[in-house]
């Protein structure tokens, strides 16, 4: 059965980025309470796991660049177009190659200019 102090700790833990930020009396309680230590450890593991997500990057769908390029090319933007629709898929390869090539040209041009400077 948890004490009133345990409940106070458990109530505060979700708001804290680290259990060391608990108020002093609760810190002293936690140093002697295995239940509260276990609960704090669960939140720490949750924090570590969520923070670890930041380093994970998903690969964007192939048609994204072509879809953006296509919308910027059109007068009167018709709104979001599916990046997975058949028409876009057909245009995606050509669009992506064109966008990547254009980007490469810009980068090469700029790098040459920088090395010449």
């Amino acid at each position, binding site marked *: 059965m948890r004490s009133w102090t345990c409940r106070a700790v458990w109530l505060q833990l*979700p*708001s804290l980025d680290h259990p060391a930020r608990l108020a002093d009396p609760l810190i002293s309680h936690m140093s002697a309470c295995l239940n509260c230590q*276990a609960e704090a*450890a*669960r*939140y*720490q*593991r*949750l*924090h*570590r*796991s*969520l*923070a*670890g*997500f*930041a*380093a*994970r*990057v*998903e*690969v*964007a*769908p*192939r*048609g*994204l*660049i072509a*879809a*953006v*390029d296509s*919308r*910027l090319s059109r007068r009167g*933007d018709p709104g*979001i*177009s*599916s*990046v*997975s*629709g058949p028409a876009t*898929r057909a245009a995606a390869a050509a669009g992506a190659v064109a*966008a*990547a090539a*254009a*980007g*490469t*040209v*810009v*980068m090469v041009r*700029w790098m040459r200019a920088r090395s010449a400077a």
Partner: protein
Amino acid sequence: MYADEVKRDDEELVRLAREGDRAAFSALVVRHQNEVFTLALRLVGDRELAADVAQEAFVRGWRALPKFRGDAQFSTWIYRITVNTASSLRSRAARRRTEPLDDFTFEPHADGMSPERAGEIAEIRPHIEAALKVLPGGTRTVVVLKDVYGWSHPEIAEHLDITVTASKVRLHRGRKRLRVELWPYLKDTS
């Protein structure tokens, strides 16, 4: 430093794009599409909608470029546009069209962490992704921005147009809910 090089390259590309150079903007899209898509995916919890959010964010970014003062990095700026876009598109999600996803490729990878930590995260990741989807949209957004991307409460409040207190309340609720949803996977601590 690699980060400094990237920042300088972005600055040059932004300068060209602001002058109307679409190829330079395409280069920026190529450079940042994965990170923008990843952020969108975490905010909306749906790959197709995330692709729409990323697309719309870049289009809005292109239109807003004249207002970009360069006092933040381009990546930070486009992430903020992505957060706002995710917020507005999520509310339209019920009306969005459904298209097949057969031609999508997703190749997640992990960088910059120890093998032990990567292992721990790999083990719990699918469960966290599932648990995040259970959270209400506004709560999930705060948890993702605070606990995954390290935004402060004032930053979150400003971009979601909520108070700092509301941001803190959503975080508290979100973490409590995640703790309940993930109970079996959080037991084994080290």
